[in-house]
């Protein structure tokens, strides 16, 4: 099973049926796998804060959501994470491509990478970092944890995890 299929499998095992995405090159395979799966409603968003609004609504409507986005989105979504997801105590697994780490060819991505963990820490967002493919074995437990504690939870996935791109 490919890592993309494995991620989608863990989503389904945890009843995630509403996934919003803003694309990143590293995430192209998993986004394709989400789109291809009939049991998940895939709703591409134009901006990540919009996606978090969709996820908040879907969760209140009775579906378990998730968002797939790039780490640059942390800069876009701080207000939404704080005044919507956290303030109303809503669960939100965030599968995040951790651009700007080892293997990154685009220098500008490093500028956001150096702030990513600091921002997540400042926001008291539980954060997990997938560096090796085997790290994905924790995804199932992370998703269970997210829906147990009703918090946004970050899963950072770097270029090494995705075997470059």
């Amino acid at each position: 099973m490919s890592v993309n299929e494995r991620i989608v499998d863990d989503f389904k095992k945890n009843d995630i049926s509403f996934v919003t995405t803003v694309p990143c090159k590293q995430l192209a395979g998993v986004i394709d796998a989400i789109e291809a799966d009939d049991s998940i409603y895939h709703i591409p968003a134009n901006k990540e804060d919009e996606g978090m609004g969709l996820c908040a609504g879907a969760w209140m409507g009775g579906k378990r959501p998730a968002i797939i986005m790039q780490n640059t989105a942390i800069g876009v979504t701080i207000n939404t994470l704080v005044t919507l997801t956290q303030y109303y105590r809503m669960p939100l697994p965030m599968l995040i491509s951790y651009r700007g780490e080892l293997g990154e060819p685009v220098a500008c991505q490093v500028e956001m990478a150096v702030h990513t963990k600091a921002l997540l820490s400042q926001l008291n967002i539980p954060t997990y970092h997938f560096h090796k493919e085997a790290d994905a074995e924790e995804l199932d437990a992370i998703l269970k944890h997210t829906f147990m504690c009703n918090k946004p939870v970050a899963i950072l996935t770097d270029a090494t995890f995705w075997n470059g791109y």
Partner: protein
Amino acid sequence: MIRSEVLREIAPIIRDHLVVCNIGLPSQELHLIDDQPSNFYMLGTMGLSSSIGLGVALAQDKKVISIDGDGSVLTNFGTLPTIANNVADNFILLVIDNGSYGSTGDQPTYAGKKTSLTKVAEACGCENVVECQAEETPQVIKDALASNKMTIIVCKCESGNVKVPVITMDPVSIRDRFMGVVQA
């Protein structure tokens, strides 16, 4: 007619449905006029009323009305293509378009100048877009509810505010009782 008068007129029509209400004065006014457990008041996050409402509508079958403003739609412009391309026939987006940022002191918006949100919504691919005058809004909402078609209503009204208290309810209480109605 100003926004609070529009809300007063439509309150008896929307009270039996799920309502997601825009941040600031719209939520404070609706809370004062007709507080219902089926109302989800936004206390933060300007612009996301339509996104939250669409999410609720796509996740379950009850009818959902998002009350939004012209300023908030301008803030989250990407919402209109998403709505157009993810049709939920139990969803109504009511944009109360008074051409101003009401909650922050009535600064003019571009929607009150050259930009038509009705035409933007149509250009984004929304299929049932109705522009109406404030006085016509109750009937337009009744028709939209009866049509069982996703509808975008752009209600043109006057700019202006009334004094209302802030909402002091706990956010978790707001969403918990809202979810109780969803599940009922």
